[in-house]
């Protein structure tokens, strides 16, 4: 479709919050107990992250890439397309990210940015699923790491911040774009989770910029 600029963001909210969260609920029911497996994968990533034998960092890449592939196929392609025609394109974005993540080494940094990234990863695993029941939507509408896109993307951003050295910028593009897309959708639906999605890029880009400055000026201690 051409002439995108003639549309406003509200033109692209195609469904009601009730329809969206019922879709999440029906999806959760359909893939159960995959949620237990994906959460277990999250714990495995945490363990591997801090036992960084050289070969293990590629295991993390493999796990996270597989989870993205699952979200792309099972959620975006099979489910989300039923209410959002643009989800076809989102699935394509996620497929590209699968390839990029598989080539991204993950070794943890033990500095402030590493702690920020680790906190984002753990929060995505443990706190994000609690938002649905806390906001009155019930546990069956919880969005789980490795199953639903939002916590998967947030956790991945956390991992990319944790990763030693600045993450390859092209690996960040899809997660950051997704945060904007999903954040805007949730904002239009009046869902408080929107702020989490919209704040995450600021946090990640801020950490990346801070780290780049530290790497660029390692000897600058403020003394002459």
């Amino acid at each position, binding site marked *: 479709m051409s002439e995108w600029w*003639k549309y406003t963001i509200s033109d692209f909210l*195609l469904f*009601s919050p009730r*329809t969206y969260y019922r*879709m999440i609920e029906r999806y959760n029911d359909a893939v159960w107990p995959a949620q237990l497996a994906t959460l277990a994968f999250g714990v495995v990533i945490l363990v591997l992250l801090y036992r960084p034998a050289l070969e293990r960092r590629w295991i993390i890449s493999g796990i996270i890439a597989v989870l993205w592939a699952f979200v792309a196929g099972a959620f975006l392609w099979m*489910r989300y397309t039923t*209410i959002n*025609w643009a989800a076809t394109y989102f699935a394509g974005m996620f497929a590209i990210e699968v390839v990029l993540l598989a080539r991204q080494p993950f070794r943890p940094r033990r500095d402030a940015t590493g702690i920020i990234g680790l906190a984002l990863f753990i929060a995505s695993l443990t706190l994000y699923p609690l938002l649905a029941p806390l906001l009155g939507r019930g546990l069956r509408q919880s969005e789980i790491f490795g199953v639903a896109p939002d916590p998967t993307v947030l956790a991945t951003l956390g991992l990319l911040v944790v990763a030693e050295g600045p993450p390859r910028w092209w690996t960040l593009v899809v997660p950051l774009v997704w945060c904007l897309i999903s954040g805007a959708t949730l904002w239009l639906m009046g869902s408080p989770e929107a702020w989490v999605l919209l704040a995450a890029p600021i946090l990640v880009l801020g950490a990346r910029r801070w780290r780049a400055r530290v790497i660029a000026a390692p000897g600058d201690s403020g003394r002459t």
Partner: protein
Amino acid sequence: MAAGAAAVMLRRPPPALARAAPVTKSIPSSGEQIPVVGLGSWITFNVGDDPELRDECAAVMHAFFREGGRLIDSSPMYGSSQAVIGYGLTKLGRPATLFAADKVWISSGSRGPTQIEESRALWGVQRFDLLQVHNLLTWEDHLPTLFAMKAAGRVRYVGITTSEGRRHDEMARIMASQPIDFVQVTYNVLDREVEERILPLARERRIAVIANRPFRQGALIRQVERHKLPGWASEVGAATWPQFLLKFIVSHPAITCAIPATSRVAHVVENMNAAAGPLPDEELRHRIAAYVQAL
């Protein structure tokens, strides 16, 4: 004046279903009468393959037809709405009174016929009554296709749409130069830009007008419902805010019908009741507009 001109109803629902007699207005290009309140499907009918929500939409459609409604409007842009309408029509036994309005929304002119055929299959209708070029997208390519379909008897009316006050210059040019039957624009008590040029031009060119976003996606109702409905609302037979707002829209002499969208049976009944009874005259229209704008 508008109420008087709109007083005759040409087609009634089957006697067993008849409850109210909605006010109707004529489509200028043919004289055919349609009820002044139709049913939109944007957001509300995009429920995917959720069986429970699909049944709720079918119940809304059932109430709509029961109350004398005819025109249902959709678009390929609205996700699963077309398929959900098709589901509802099948469940309701394909009501003969249906006036099926859909759109073509694709940047490639050559792929327009394919999209239209896919839409027709999703609705499960033999042909659409009205096909519109959605948001004027590639209208130069699509309008000749639609005119050819009309000439071949594969669609009865041709139209164009826009929303939220966009591209009115281009719309006016098309209205002045092309033999279209319908335009669809955003019109409500607060969004009245079309009164300046589009609506007078529609009357001059004898083009029917569908008003979309009558409640600004519900925001207008939420905005006014904090306030008491004025006592004089009963003069136009409005018992609720949505009825009050709808009566303002459909009483404009150039407006043929409004298409509020809803997923609730109670709301569709409320909307259809706004199509029954008296409509405000010019003086009352001014009073309604002034009252709402002052809130």
